[in-house]
C-alpha cells in the first residue's frame, strides 16, 4: 500500500424494525454525526464520501446517494456508491480505505445503510419475472438447502444452529444498539420456534432492520494524531464467483476460502485461529457460523460445528465470534457488512463496552452476499502493520 489507513471514528444508529422518527437522510446523518464525534472531526475535515447499500428497490429510490450525499457534506467532494449485494457494507469500507491507502485522500467518511421499512423488501427480492415461476421463497428459501447440504456432509449435531442462535442472542443483550433483544431467550425457546424454511427455525433467522453505520478512515498521520485509539487496517480483500455454474460448491464456496487465505497472507497471519483475537462475521442464519468457521480456515472442513459446540466462539472462548449479537440480532442489509467491520474495529480500539473482548488486538470483519458468492473482509489491529 502507498499509505497506511486506520479507522479513527465509528458511528452506528440505533437499529429498529421501523425508524419512523427519521427519514433516510436523518438515518445516515445519525450514523455519520456519531462517527465524526467519535473522531472529533467536523464535516469540513472530510475529503470524500463513500456510500453503500443493498438494492435500490429496498427503498424505492434509484441511486439514492445522489439525494443523500449533500446531507453528508458531499457537495464539492468526490462521492462513490458501492453495491456488491449483501457484502456491500464491507466492500464500501474497503473502497473508502483504498481512497486513503492510495494516497489520494487523507480522511474519508463512509456510510452504509438500509431503511427497508420505506418500501417492501420482500417485494424487491421477489419481482415476478415472466416465464419463470419462482419457487425459492426469499433468502431463507435459497439458503436452507445449502444448510441441509452442510448438515449432510459434516454430520453436525442438529442443535448446532440453536446453540449459535442462543449465543448471538445473549451477546445482543450486551449491545446497546442491537435491534432484536430477547432478554428471556433460552435454548428451548429457539428450539420450539416455528420452522420457516426447514431446517431453519424462526429464531435462527435475522430480523429486518432500519439502520446505518459510518466510519471515518484516516491516513497514518491522522491515525497517529487521533485522540482515541485507531484501528489500523492491516489487510482487506474482496472475492467474487458466479452464482450458478457446473461444479460450484455453494456450501463451501471457493471465493470465501481464497478470500480469507489471501487476506491472512496480506496481513502476515500464518495461524488465524491463534493470531486473531475475535471475529465478527456475517451470519444471517445460525448455521452459517460453523460453515464460515471452515470457510475462514479457523476449523478443518466439516469440523466448524465443533467450535460452536465446544464454546470456542462464545465471548469467553478462544475465538469469540459475533460479539455484537451479529446479523441474527440486527440486519439493516446494506449496513450489515459495515457493522461487522465496525465491530472488529471497536474491539481493537477497546470501545466495545459490555461485549468487549479483553485484550483484543487483532480482529477480523467479514461480510458475504448474493448466493454465497461475494466476499469482503478486513483485518484490523491496535497497531499499524510492521
Amino acid at each position, binding site marked *: 500500500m502507498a499509505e497506511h489507513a486506520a479507522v479513527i471514528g465509528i458511528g452506528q444508529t440505533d437499529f429498529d424494525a421501523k425508524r419512523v422518527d427519521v427519514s433516510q437522510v436523518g438515518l445516515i446523518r445519525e450514523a455519520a454525526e456519531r462517527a465524526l464525534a467519535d473522531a472529533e472531526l467536523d464535516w469540513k475535515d472530510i475529503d470524500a464520501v463513500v456510500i453503500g447499500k443493498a438494492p435500490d428497490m429496498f427503498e424505492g429510490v434509484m441511486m439514492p446517494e445522489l439525494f443523500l450525499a449533500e446531507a453528508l457534506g458531499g457537495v464539492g467532494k468526490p462521492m462513490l456508491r458501492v453495491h456488491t449485494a449483501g457484502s456491500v457494507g464491507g466492500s464500501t469500507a474497503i473502497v473508502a480505505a483504498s481512497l486513503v491507502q492510495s494516497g489520494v485522500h487523507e480522511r474519508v467518511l463512509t456510510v452504509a445503510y438500509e431503511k427497508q421499512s420505506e418500501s417492501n423488501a420482500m417485494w424487491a427480492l421477489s419481482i415476478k419475472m415472466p*416465464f419463470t415461476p419462482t419457487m425459492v421463497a426469499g433468502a431463507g428459501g435459497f439458503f436452507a*438447502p445449502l444448510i441441509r447440504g452442510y448438515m449432510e456432509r459434516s454430520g453436525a449435531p442438529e442443535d448446532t444452529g440453536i446453540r449459535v442462535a442462543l449465543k448471538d442472542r445473549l451477546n445482543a443483550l450486551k449491545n446497546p444498539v442491537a435491534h432484536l433483544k430477547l432478554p428471556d431467550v433460552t435454548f428451548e425457546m429457539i428450539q420450539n420456534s416455528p420452522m420457516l424454511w426447514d431446517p431453519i427455525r424462526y429464531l435462527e433467522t435475522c430480523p429486518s432492520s432500519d439502520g446505518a453505520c459510518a466510519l471515518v478512515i484516516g491516513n497514518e498521520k491522522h491515525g497517529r494524531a487521533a485522540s482515541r485509539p485507531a484501528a489500523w487496517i492491516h489487510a482487506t480483500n474482496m472475492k467474487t464467483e458466479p452464482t450458478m455454474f457446473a461444479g460450484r460448491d455453494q456450501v463451501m464456496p471457493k471465493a470465501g476460502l481464497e478470500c480469507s487465505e489471501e487476506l491472512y497472507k496480506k496481513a502476515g497471519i500464518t495461524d488465524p485461529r491463534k493470531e486473531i483475537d475475535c471475529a465478527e462475521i456475517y451470519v444471517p442464519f445460525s448455521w452459517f457460523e460453523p460453515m464460515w468457521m471452515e470457510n475462514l480456515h479457523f476449523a478443518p472442513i466439516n469440523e466448524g460445528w465443533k467450535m460452536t459446540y465446544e464454546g470456542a466462539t462464545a465471548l469467553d472462548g478462544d475465538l469469540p465470534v459475533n460479539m455484537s449479537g451479529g446479523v441474527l440480532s440486527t440486519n439493516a442489509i446494506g449496513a450489515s457488512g459495515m457493522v461487522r467491520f465496525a465491530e472488529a474495529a471497536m474491539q481493537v480500539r477497546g470501545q466495545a463496552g459490555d461485549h468487549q473482548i479483553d485484550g483484543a488486538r487483532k480482529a477480523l470483519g467479514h461480510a458475504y452476499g448474493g448466493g454465497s458468492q461475494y466476499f469482503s473482509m478486513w483485518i484490523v489491529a491496535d497497531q499499524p502493520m510492521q
Partner: protein
Amino acid sequence: MSEEREPVTRIVTPVRVAYTYTPGIASERFLRGCKEGKLLGGICDACGRVYIPSRGACPRCAAPTSKFQELSDQGTIITFCIVRVPAENIAVDLPYCTASILLDGADISFTGLIQGCPFEDVRIGMRVQAIWKPESEWDYSVGNIEHFHPLDEPDIPFKDLKGYS
C-alpha cells in the same frame, strides 16, 4: 400556534414502472423447448458442460452455450428445503418442498417442487421424475412441470453427488 403537532412519520408515494423483458438467446431456446415439453440443456462452447436452464453463458468459461441437447426429465435430489412461510410471489399451498434436482445428463441442478411422498421421506440422493401438466396447458415456461415425483429406484450415494451441490 403553540399547539403541538404530531410528527409526519410516513408519506405514501405510489410508484409504477413497467418493463419489457427480453430473455436472451439461450433462455429463449430453452423456453421454446418447454412449450414442446422438452427440457433443453445448453452446452458450453468451451468446456462442454451442460446447463439447464442456460442463462446465456457458462460462467466458468464466460463462453456461450450455442448448442443444445434434450435432457431427461428424471433426476436426483441434491438438496431440499421445506417451506412453511408464505411469499408473495409463490402460489403454492404451504407447506411445500422445493429441491435442487440434478437432471440426468445435466451438470447443474434445477429447482422443482417435490410431491407424492411425505416430507419425512424426502432425502438427498432420492431419484425423482417430472410430472407434466396436460399438453394443452403447455406454455413458454418451466411451469409446465407441475412437480417432481419419487421414482422407485435406489438412491444415489451422497459421495457420488459431490461437485453438484
